[in-house]
């Protein structure tokens, strides 16, 4: 049982990073849908850099930078170019996923991939990123709800026109939130080879990026509730993974469905909460003339 809890806490980490990244972008009004691809990119970069150029922490850092770069492209395309957020998000999902595959193929080729060293444990059998992820959630809560700049960021996601009229730079805020969010998503992906598999594979993310979006909705786009909700998603994840290893009477495929089916059911309630930022997914154009 305690083993289950330990595993659940580890499994919580990628969900937490990616969902908090989604939340952070979303609170400024940028609805990123490229998580699945950014996690894959983070996983590939994290794995390759750890393997070849200096270990896990450097791998995490480079992955974060790559994710931030993709987040910045999303921010730039949707603020300066005012392109549709979902369309750009999907395009970046393909591009980042394709880039991940390509990088891996170019560096490793078709050989049997060597395993990287896992992140070292600190206490309670948990590695450093577990504590970083929880600390980050607390920090995000404090920033968004207890500081002037956090309030500004939230106002940009709720009513960018109001924010703009008070001298808040909507474009810069959105760029910042999209970049930081993209960075967090890639870190969530980079954690996967470091904590679980030790190697990269094209199927390593297995829908966690999409589930993290669901988690952001489930947590009402609030860092503290996302932290709580991530335990639920992690528990489902662990159950599904365990079922594949040890049979429990019913075909393992049905247990593997569990996270997705449970999430769908949970979404029915999450979308009733209506805690979504008002301008989530909507672009802002200062000079659009609404009234004559």
């Amino acid at each position: 049982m305690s083993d289950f809890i330990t595993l659940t806490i580890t499994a919580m980490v990628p969900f937490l990073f990616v969902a908090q990244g989604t939340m952070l972008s979303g609170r400024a009004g940028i609805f990123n849908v490229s998580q699945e691809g950014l996690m894959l990119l983070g996983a590939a970069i994290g794995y390759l850099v750890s393997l070849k150029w200096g270990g896990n922490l450097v791998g995490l850092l480079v992955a974060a930078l790559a994710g931030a770069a993709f987040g910045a492209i999303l921010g730039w395309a949707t603020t300066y170019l005012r392109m549709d957020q979902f369309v750009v998000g999907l395009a970046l999902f393909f591009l980042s996923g394709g880039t991940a595959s390509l990088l891996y193929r170019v560096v490793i080729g078709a050989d049997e991939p060597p395993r990287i060293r896992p992140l070292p444990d600190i206490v309670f059998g948990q590695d450093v990123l577990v504590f970083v992820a929880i600390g980050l959630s607390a920090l995000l809560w404090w920033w968004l709800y207890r500081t002037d700049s956090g309030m500004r960021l939230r106002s940009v996601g709720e009513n960018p026109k109001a924010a703009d009229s008070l001298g808040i730079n909507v474009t810069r805020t959105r760029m910042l939130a999209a970049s930081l969010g993209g960075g967090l998503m890639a870190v969530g992906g980079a954690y996967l080879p470091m904590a679980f598999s030790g190697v990269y594979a094209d199927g390593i993310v297995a829908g966690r990026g999409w589930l993290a979006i669901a988690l952001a909705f489930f947590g009402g786009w609030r860092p503290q509730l996302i932290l709580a909700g991530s335990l639920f998603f992690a528990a489902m994840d662990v159950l599904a993974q365990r079922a594949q290893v040890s049979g429990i009477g019913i075909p393992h495929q049905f247990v593997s469905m569990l996270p997705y089916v449970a999430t769908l059911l949970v979404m029915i309630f999450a979308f009733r909460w209506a805690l979504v930022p008002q301008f989530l997914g909507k672009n802002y154009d200062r000079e659009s003339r609404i009234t004559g």
Partner: protein
Amino acid sequence: MSAPDAAPGGAAPPLLRMRGIRKTFGPVVALKDVDFTVGPREVHGLLGGNGAGKTTLMNVLYGLYAPDAGTIEIDGAPVVIASPKDAIAAGVGMVHQTFLQVDVFTVAENVVLGTDTSGVDVNGRIRELSERFGLAVDPAARIGDLPVGVRQRVEILKALYRGAKILVLDEPTTNLTPQEVDALFGSMRAIVDEGMSVVLITHKIRETMAACDRMTIMRDGAWIATVDAADTSPEDLAARMVGAAPASDETADVALGGTEIGDATLDVPEVTGPVRVVGSRLTVPGTGGKAVVEDVSIELCEGEILGIAGVAGNGQVELAETLTGCRPAHGSLTLDGTELVGRPTEAWLRAGVVYVPEDRQRDGILPGADITENLVLGAHRTRAKAGLIDWGRARREAVEAISEFAVKTPSAATACGQLSGGNIQRVILARAFAHNPKMLLLHNPTRGLDIASTQFVYDRIRAAAAGGCSVIVISEDLDEVIALADRIRVAYSGRLVGDFARGHADPYELGRLMTGVSGAA
């Protein structure tokens, strides 16, 4: 009349001087080298019809629009205002017509948003400001829960909190009752007494005469004149606003807000004819237990125009949608004896109930579709044969409709969203009348239109009524309701109160009903 850049007293530089401001939107020139000067300690009216460029000019001052040419000086020193941040730093505050507030934030959070609050007693400072200027608010209240009048006070407090020297108010009285208008003008005086200046954007002459020291008149994006209140008269202002091409006296009167109590319409006979529309006990339940439309009953004869006045946000949109079948409701509504409640919107349309919504861009048109397609919208099912639409015929009819309703457009294939507000409304009316309506409901039908288009809309409404159509005009412009309606009722908090025949309504009595002060029902 003085020259635009002459400050009162002569010697000291004016508080604000804008020179040669030019602004284009695509091919449209919205501001034609406008000069605008505001002296210290004055309420300066910025007067003009809709589309005159008043708001555009002030949006340039507030850094929301980048001008193509022109300079701005404050206290004699040139300033560059590229964003609202620069405007705030230069001492400019602006209250927009649609409030720029974050609904989920509290009053205090909205006021301090964007400022540095470390070491500041926010609530104390807000309380101090609200007492000094007579702007009562509760700093802890959630802004989305507050009525319009309070939200406007918050907007003014936002500007004062940032130390504005020049406070711009854009049509601040639109959604206020006469009583609230008096309070607002009192606060404006208190602000000027403290050494600041107020720019009052309005299209209502009476307001400028009552509240302003000086006023600047604009027309078609150009500066026309700047005059002292003492040296002018309402007639003089009206003449300058309308310019060389005056519309009919009555329309100009309504558009400019000059209609006086009672007016010369007392002797108009009451409309009597066969009853066409009977709505009884219409109710739309809301989310929080309180109904958004509550127990509304109406009765309309053929050819009758019913006016519904009211402050925005008293359930007008919901009421309009209920009366036109766009929103499910309890109760009953019959048209020529046929029950419509409970049937889909399409059935109401087929029966002859036609809706001209308030928000033209959002509710009235498909902005990305061309004029032909927009004219087909709503009639696409009745016109189709075997599920297919005859676009050739639709295009021919569109050409006819464009010429009949004088829509200014290069072709029928032009996207509707590219037309001006007045032309969009003409397209919407062309579509509405193509349905041969038996009951026509229009919500704020002339908001944002120039005088020619306003006159056009009024003519069409009257012609429809003369042809036997029952018309409902819901408008937040009390003068418009008084000018058009055979009977007037008031929307208050989701209910309909009062019932006045033409010529028997006193604006102050209507004002009391609009705020729920008076209990007549």
